[in-house]
């Protein structure tokens, strides 16, 4: 799994960094971004294999980030990270081209399986 590169976008920085550290222990290189601008900059400079994207964020919301990632030349699979009461957003996100979703708090093993599936589907 050493060659997998994930970008985790979540405004909960503590949470995102801890998940990233746990993924790295399991051999997945994971960068984090706490807002849409940082995420889009990272995607352009170091395109990841998969983006794990929180939908409810201040500033550029998750759906807008999703649209912008989808408009890029390279097709990067996106897994949505959703919380309570985000069903409509999640459906919209899936309709906009997200490949899968996980509910917060996510099970790390499930997330890894979904990341691997997303890469295979590409």
């Amino acid at each position, binding site marked *: 799994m050493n060659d997998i590169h994930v970008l985790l976008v979540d405004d909960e920085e503590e*949470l995102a960094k*801890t998940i990233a550290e*746990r993924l790295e*222990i399991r051999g997945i290189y994971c960068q984090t971004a706490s807002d849409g601008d940082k995420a889009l900059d990272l995607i352009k400079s170091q395109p990841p294999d998969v983006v794990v994207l929180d939908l*409810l964020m201040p500033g550029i919301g998750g759906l807008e980030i999703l649209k912008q990632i989808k408009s890029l030349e390279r097709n990067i699979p996106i897994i949505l990270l959703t919380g309570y009461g985000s069903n409509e957003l999640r459906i919209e996100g899936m309709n906009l081209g997200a490949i899968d979703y996980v509910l917060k*708090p996510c099970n790390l093993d499930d997330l890894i399986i979904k990341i691997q599936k997303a890469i295979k589907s590409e």
Partner: protein
Amino acid sequence: MKGNEVEFIGKITAGVTHEVNNVLASIREISGLMNDILSMTDEKSFPRKEKFQTSLEKIQNQVHRGVKLTSQLNKFSHLSDSIKTEIDLNDSIQHLIFLTERFARIKNVSLIHQTSNKSVTLISDPLKLQMALFNCIAYLLNRISNDGEINLSQEKKGDDFFVSISYNGEIVNRETVFKDSSSVEELVSLHTILESLGGTYEFDESNNTIILKIRDKK
């Protein structure tokens, strides 16, 4: 309570449960990371490793419990989103039991849901329906002795939907409990709620049961 006040409480509760969920997610991942690091450490360099791992497991279990509670509370906060929506009585009763279990546990009473295999769905006001069911549970809990079970079941007969709430334990003043009275607060409230749902209630004294009849608002 006025509609906009209920909506206000619902929105604030939904927002806070969302935040609490993020806190729980962070605790889960941080304790998970601690466990990951411990797993890479040998016993010699960490003499109380096993004790730490057991403690981390307990943190994870409490997080799991917290997530379940906040998710059910979040679901509850959204009951006021609509006054007319499709409701599965199985889910609705299960949800209410989860939220009210604590009240029953104080009296050492178990709330038991007799689920039906097929879904029993109707169009109604989800918040008022929960309030009606809660009133019945509260009415019984306030009048029964400690111990025993309150059983809730649902069925559809023709165009009407029925929920039965029965108690199988000891009742001190049995003759007054299963008699309708306009001086009992819970029953007045129950009557008002059910009226707005197009429903009624009745007592089945021989079976220690309150039966709610609810109309489908299709």
